[in-house]
């Protein structure tokens, strides 16, 4: 970055054809730089105000609430220091909740990214019907999440559509939402089909941005299709892989409606993920202070995962390598 030399306000314009502006007394307070700065601040002000009111203040309040025992019914709000954090560390349900969260997140992120990339590669071919399939895979993204989940809830019943379909093929399907493993798999699958289209479109855009001459050069060097994918495609789309992986990881930690509609955290506590546990504690159980403590934990987890991904980008994102 080189520094511009500022000319004082009111200095004659460099071109001779433009008439000179009326002379002013000295540079004054409103220099061009200051006016530019003011304009800049005014442009970001609405966004900044929104961020302060809806993000930063609530974030600070969550920390504050997490230090209190807040009984909504009796209207008591008592400072308890780190009691909630100690209770969280000793919460016998927490390991199970974290395990369920990890299963869900890993299951969703791996399948979502793999399937989205596979679909994008397939649909990037110059074949008939790709537009139709592209629309088909993307359309669930724009469907209302709750409506989508309710329909799947009906389909996944023991006597629902999925098992009906399996019966016609002579297969006796499981009671999807009642088994520990099948319930988790169902929730992941419902979320996967809902959102895979978004990542697919992002990958597709990235794939179309890979210059063709790189493939030509690779072919001349004797690279097969797999080698071309591994050594040309993947490095070139790695910034998009980083973006989609961060979005998907963060999104997976925010799953709520699917759990609330499909399983309510069951059977047992097999699908009680962290955000659903937070909701249970804060709202149905009336432990608002403890709920705030869990949201601080969720915040910390998201922060750590994002920072780790961001730091690792230097190792595997093509444009970030020195």
């Amino acid at each position, binding site marked *: 970055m080189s520094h511009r030399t500022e000319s004082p306000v009111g200095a004659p314009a460099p071109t001779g054809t433009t008439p000179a502006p009326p002379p002013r007394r000295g540079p004054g307070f409103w220099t061009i730089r200051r006016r530019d700065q003011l304009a800049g601040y005014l442009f970001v002000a609405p966004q900044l105000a929104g*961020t302060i009111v*809806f*993000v930063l203040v*609530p*974030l600070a*309040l*969550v920390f504050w*609430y997490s230090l209190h025992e807040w*009984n*909504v*019914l*009796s*209207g008591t709000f008592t400072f308890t220091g780190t009691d909630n954090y100690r209770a969280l560390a000793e919460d016998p349900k927490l390991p199970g909740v974290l395990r369920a969260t990890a299963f869900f997140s890993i299951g969703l992120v791996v399948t979502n990214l793999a399937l989205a990339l596979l679909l994008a590669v397939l649909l990037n071919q110059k074949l008939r019907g790709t537009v139709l399939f592209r629309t088909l895979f993307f359309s669930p993204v724009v469907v209302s999440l709750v409506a989508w989940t309710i329909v799947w809830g009906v389909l*996944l*019943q*023991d*006597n*629902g559509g999925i098992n009906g379909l399996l019966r016609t093929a002579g297969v006796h399907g499981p*009671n*999807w*939402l*009642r088994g520990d493993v099948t319930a988790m798999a169902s929730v992941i699958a419902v979320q996967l089909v809902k959102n895979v289209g978004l990542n697919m479109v992002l990958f597709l855009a990235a794939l179309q941005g890979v210059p063709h001459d790189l493939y030509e050069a690779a072919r001349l060097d004797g690279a097969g299709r797999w080698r071309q994918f591994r050594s040309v495609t993947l490095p070139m789309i790695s910034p998009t892989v980083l*973006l989609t992986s*961060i*979005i998907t990881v*963060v999104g997976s*930690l*925010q799953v709520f409606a699917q759990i609330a509609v499909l399983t*309510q*955290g*069951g*059977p*047992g*506590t097999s699908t009680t993920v962290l*955000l659903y546990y*937070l909701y*249970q504690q*804060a*709202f*149905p*159980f*009336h432990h*608002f202070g403890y*709920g*705030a403590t869990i*949201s601080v934990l*969720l*915040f910390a987890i*998201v*922060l750590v995962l*994002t*920072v780790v991904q*961001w730091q690792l980008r230097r190792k595997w994102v093509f444009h970030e390598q020195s």
Partner: protein
Amino acid sequence: MRQSRVLRFAAVATAGLLGLTACGGGGDKEDSGPVSLRMTVWSSAAPHLALFKSIADEYKKTHKNVTDITFDPIPFDSYTTTLTTQIAGGKAPDLAWILEGSAPDFVSSGALVPLDDTIAKTSGYDAADITPAATKLWKDGGKLYAYPFSTSPFGVFVNTDLLKKAGQPAPADLIKSGKWTWDQAFAEGSQVNAKTGKAGIVIRDFDYKLWENLSTIWTGWGAQAWSADGKTCGFDKPEMVDAMTRLNKAIFTEKALPGPGTGADFFAGESAMTVAQISRAALLKDAKFGWDLVPLPAGPKGSYSVIGQAGLGVFKQSKHSAAAADFLAYFTNPENSAKLAQFFPPARKSQLNVDTLAKSNPLLKPAQLQSVVIDGIPQGVVKPAHSGSAELSQSVRSALDPLWKPGADVKAVLTSVCSAIAPQLSK
């Protein structure tokens, strides 16, 4: 930049939680100027709301300072959660229906206004007419914090056409011969399922989640979820093990009840019997099949009755709590209680007779009202209630889940229920 966006994204969950709760505030108890009251209810049935409105309109005629009374229906599934969220946000209603399950929480919290003084000074209220058994759950330290406006016994609705089709005897005849037992009911349910493909017996609203509704069965075995003082777990007691073993067999071996994840609606003609409260009779207005209402079958410990209750309370947080309590006394006075009786069985002894109930329940026969409602209320066991009800209910539901499969180790599962809820019971 991207990182800050992600951080912002992460904070949305917490912001959402706080957006609902950040704006707290107290209430001014002085009633100056026009009063507007809001009552939350979990029924959105048009006949219910029309009746409430007509009572409110009458009240407004004699209380000119009350300009508006609104009835705000909240879906049943999320009723208590929504209500407490409104309280947390400083937007508590003036009056609210309260579910029996959360009665101990509300009654002991100090969130409600005691009603005794208002009731005492309301002329013609006749508080002595209210059965003590009905108000027990709603009292704390001798004071009444909510009025039990609905004390509704559970009965069995029977699709007589479906039973006939499966060649099964009608429960009404079995009652006469003293053979109306759970074993018989399960056998009939099993036969209906085998011969017609329809469901046998549906425990309404249970759906393998709201386990409290199973008290309509286990009470027949003499079992209870916890002791009367709420301190000792009852799930691992022999009575409960026997009841649940029998239920597991009925579901998975005899197929007398639809299994988990299988929906069947009695009122749409999809099952032969359903265990439900009498207020559900309204759903049979346009029924295309013959039906009957009979008391719960007898269990090994003989005949019994289970009642579900709903209370009506006034919040301290209300700006007009005095006016709200006054309206509550009017809403539940003898005259209006008789009107409400068509949907909500009253807790007033004088109104628990076939004549009063028959007038407002045209769908039910006098014999049905006598056997299920009038005989049921005095001896009824109230569905399980405990402080910290939502958390306790969730713990039991999670721990009971392994029971809902064929050949479950009933004793082990029920023991695990007790271990799961022991810390909460001891609080």
